């Protein structure tokens, strides 16, 4: 039994394809998608895919992390404002952690997020990398 099976599978559209909900009345996009627009109460929306580039609006470097992140530590974690204005939190990988700064341009990349020990489920999703091309 894995705690991750159903929960991961349910989140695939968000984690694998970055699908968000864009409400008809306000035109605002929410990630993850939600059924009710917190600003207007609107329940009509379309599913859109978020852009794969953006800028960091804040970050930290996590130096003391739970055991499961041990192989990756220390790691940078931040919130990026993607090209359409939507904000998303993710790890910033493939970077020199001392070079991470607010305003840094990032690209979204598909990465493994968690490994459930030796025999459990593999969880995949999005991370940010410094945009170099």
């Amino acid at each position, binding site marked *: 039994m894995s705690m991750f099976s159903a929960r991961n599978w349910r989140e*695939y559209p968000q984690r694998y394809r970055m699908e968000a909900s864009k409400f008809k009345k306000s035109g605002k996009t929410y990630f993850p998608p939600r059924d009710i627009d917190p600003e207007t109460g609107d329940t009509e929306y379309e599913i859109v895919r978020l852009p794969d580039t953006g800028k960091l609006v804040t970050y930290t470097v996590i130096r003391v992390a739970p055991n499961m992140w041990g192989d990756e530590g220390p790691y940078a974690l931040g919130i990026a404002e993607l090209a359409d204005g939507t904000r998303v939190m993710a790890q910033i990988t*493939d970077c*020199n952690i001392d070079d991470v700064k607010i305003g840094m341009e990032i690209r979204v*990349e598909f*990465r*493994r997020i968690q490994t459930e020990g030796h025999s459990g489920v*593999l969880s995949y999703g999005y991370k940010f990398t410094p945009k170099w091309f």
Partner: protein
Amino acid sequence: MAGIVGYGAHLPRHRIKVEEIAKVWGADAPSYKKGLMLREKSVPPPDMDTITLSVEAARRALIRAQNVDPKDIGAIYIGSESHPYAVKPSGTTVAEAIGATPDIHCADFEFACKAGSEAMFVALSHIDSGAMPYALAIAGDTSQGAPSDALEFSAAAGAAAFIMGKENLIAECLYTHSWMNDVPDFWRREHEFYPQHAGRFTGEPAYFRTTMGASEAILKKAGMKPSDFKYAIFHQPNGKFPQRVSRMLGFTQEQIDPGWLAPRLGNTYSGASPIGLTATLDVSEPGDLIFMCSYGSGAGSDAFVWKVTERINEVRDLTIRTHKLLDENLTYVDYGTYAKFRRKIKKNY
């Protein structure tokens, strides 16, 4: 005629030098560098695996394909010897990630270093038979090399993806030929972490005999000779083997140069000749003939003859070129970091 509609590659940015590995085991770095004709290799960080490399490569192939709706891809085949699961295909996650599910055939391929070209071979077949408009073949690996073994110096990581189709081709596939016989040169038993190999037996009776067998057969089938080709790509477990086999067949260094990545990349196993193909396509011109022959221990070779079309000019720079991934934005790690990244260190969980 079937061929490539879109292609793309992805590589890690981390590298480790031969000197770093040699130092830990007391090996003589200069002789390894000379003997393998290899100076460093790519290292995948803990959050990269065959599935993630394949997703990025496939996304780039879709970019170069320009007008392919993922839902029209009829099959996804990923060839690797380091699929993250022993049971649960890498293809399911990659297909989900690119939005190609649910009407799609999926199978994971394995045949040591030729699992990737196998995927390409079968994908092309589906197009030729008219079974589907597009088929996606991905070659990727994050292979392990046993500590202190010669293969530890070269086992690297990378992936290449090809969307095969019938129209709007970047390169037509004029001929294919597959040549195989049972040769126990390199293998990994179930539940073992590292592969094993038969030393010098992996050379002449395995790599060279098989590669020659497939290459000579396809040249005969096509009625062509090496000088007809602009470029050639061979399987590259190190820098030396592809150089030697190309000379044995009558190809020149200039022909193999664009796709000859092992000296700086290492051996990307299933990815080796396919990634070499992407690097070659990046610099090719319309009308160029490209010769490709993979090799997978066990043993077999898949050979292909490609002809580049006008469309290469339109697509080569729609996304990043393979040589840029090879040469830029690099960072070098020490052996300890490498061992940590490659999960070679024993832990409680």
